């Protein structure tokens, strides 16, 4: 997890809980409604955006099963911008022409801890679950991905920004034909 050096721990107020939950819902709305430029505005300039692979491991029920060496996303703000540019400034992003209908169902928002970082910004370590559903063309079946996210959400100049996101899929074999969406 990328988080600046903590200076002091913060208590998590109802107000912060509410603001962060609303931030995640707003983010999901921007993605669902394909307002990707608006979504990029929510990302901190130094965002870390990763999706490692899930694997099946031997051992007891709680044996770790994320392979961090194997990934599906390893992005910076600039690379995410390039991905968005492909969708809105090229004529041939076939995976998203026309854009499949998509929903991000975000739940179980849990703020694990908050700190004041060295730069004097509040940062909260936030867990959430996601269920992503997508329907293309006239398909009778819908694709889905689900799993957990670990975010760092930071307050910069009075605005909440996503500073880090690690996406942990629960499927070892992905249930979508591609990852042309953002999670």
């Amino acid at each position, binding site marked *: 997890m990328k988080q600046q050096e903590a200076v002091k721990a913060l208590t998590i107020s109802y107000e912060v809980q509410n603001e962060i939950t609303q931030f995640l819902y707003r983010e999901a709305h921007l993605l669902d409604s394909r307002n990707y430029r608006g979504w990029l505005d929510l990302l901190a300039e130094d965002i870390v955006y990763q999706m490692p692979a899930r694997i099946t491991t031997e051992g007891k029920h709680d044996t770790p099963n994320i392979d961090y*060496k194997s990934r599906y996303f390893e992005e910076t703000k600039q690379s995410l911008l390039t991905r968005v540019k492909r969708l809105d400034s090229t004529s041939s992003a076939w995976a998203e022409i026309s854009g499949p209908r998509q929903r991000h169902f975000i739940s179980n928002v849990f703020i694990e801890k908050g700190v004041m970082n060295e730069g004097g910004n509040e940062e909260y370590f936030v867990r959430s679950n996601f269920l992503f559903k997508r329907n293309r063309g006239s398909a009778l079946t819908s694709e889905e991905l689900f799993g957990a996210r670990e975010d760092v959400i930071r307050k910069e100049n009075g605005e909440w920004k996503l500073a880090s996101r690690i996406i942990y899929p629960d499927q070892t074999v992905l249930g979508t*034909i591609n990852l042309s969406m953002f999670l």
Partner: protein
Amino acid sequence: MEKQSGITKETLLNLKEKLKAGVLPQWVLADRDMYDLEIKQVFGRTWQFLAHESELKEPGSYVTRWIANDPILLTKTKSGEIKAFLNSCTHRGTLLCTADSGKQKSFTCPFHGWTYNNEGDLVGIAVGNKVYGEEMNKEDWNLRPVPNVDSYQGMIFGNLDHKAESLSDYLGNMKWYLDMMLGRSDGGMEVQGSPQRYVVEANWKVTAENFESDPYHVQFTHKSSKELGIAPNDPFFPGHGHQVVLDNGHGINLVQLDDTGISPIPYQGMPESMWPMFQKNLNKEQNDMVKDTFFVGGVYPNLGFLQFTFPLLDSDNGFYNFLNFRVWRPLAPDKVEVWSWHLIDKDAPQEYKEKSYVSFLSTFGPSGLLEQDDAEIWSRVTQASNGIMAQDKDLSYNSFLNYLMGMDRVQPNEDFPGPGVAYPLCFLDTLSRSMHKRWIDLLLAETPVKEEVR
């Protein structure tokens, strides 16, 4: 005519005639009987890629894989030997090991507790002496080995056919090109992490052909990458170079970025400090190819590869090379599971390896800007291939797919310095026709009569 699971020999001979004329009937992309026949005749009898050596680092390491519907347990034994078994308990058939990878000395079946070591020997039977006595010979109940396992340049293959030709003979003149891709560095190549896995609603022949023999699709399927400057913005890219038809349906495209023959990104963008090592390990002809071209091709039937170089999505400077191998595992006539590995030279600097991986993620695999569009289009072929017209085996609607590009028009380059028959451009269906010829020959091959079955 002899019936082969719903498809007659006559049907197959007709297909062969159509292929000679440069067309492939569309029904073969979605027909269940054809698929079942392919599983037996193609996947049951060809060498199938299982793993790269670097995935089995030390004695006790194992990975589980699939050859179509056969679960395979691949182990590294105490002595360092690689062994492959049907991943199924010999007692009642249970899937023995459910993990994707790991390290252990033995495998115990959860059903009745039979235990095997990583040599495949049955070493423990729960309450064995009391219930089976001395009469049962344990050795008769060892894990069932894959009849043929061998590796070439670190690539481990298995073949279920008892009478298979050797891996070396099967690969034939493809080996020269595998040497070039995998043998350029002293330390060889290594895999980074577990393979990516995802499922596409597509026929395996469509995906296999897409990688091995169809650079033509790049100019339009991947147009967005040209528009973004990730791929060269030349309408003829990647047509420049050579398409090389190799033994047994294998093939490679040696792609040039432009028509000068000299790559603006020498040695595929690998660090200059490594060039002398490449020159030492490769012969002159191979060295020239690594220096000035990029590779995309396949080992028939379902192992695709790409050794290419792309910029990162977040910077304008620097091109990073990677080798991607992928298996198209057939799951159904309209379903393929993609297994995709990133490889890079073990000797490359650590920082370069990481950038190489990010370059791979940016372009290939399910999140890659190029492959995202591939998957969409492969699945569209399936969507349009299931109806009465596309499925008509009498071909009364002219439901053929066109493989006429370059046919009888483009002659081989006699001066080409490598093995195989090389044509002086990559926008060509010659390699596709060779793949499908191999396919029909495998389907037509007589099943050898088993000499004796216990």
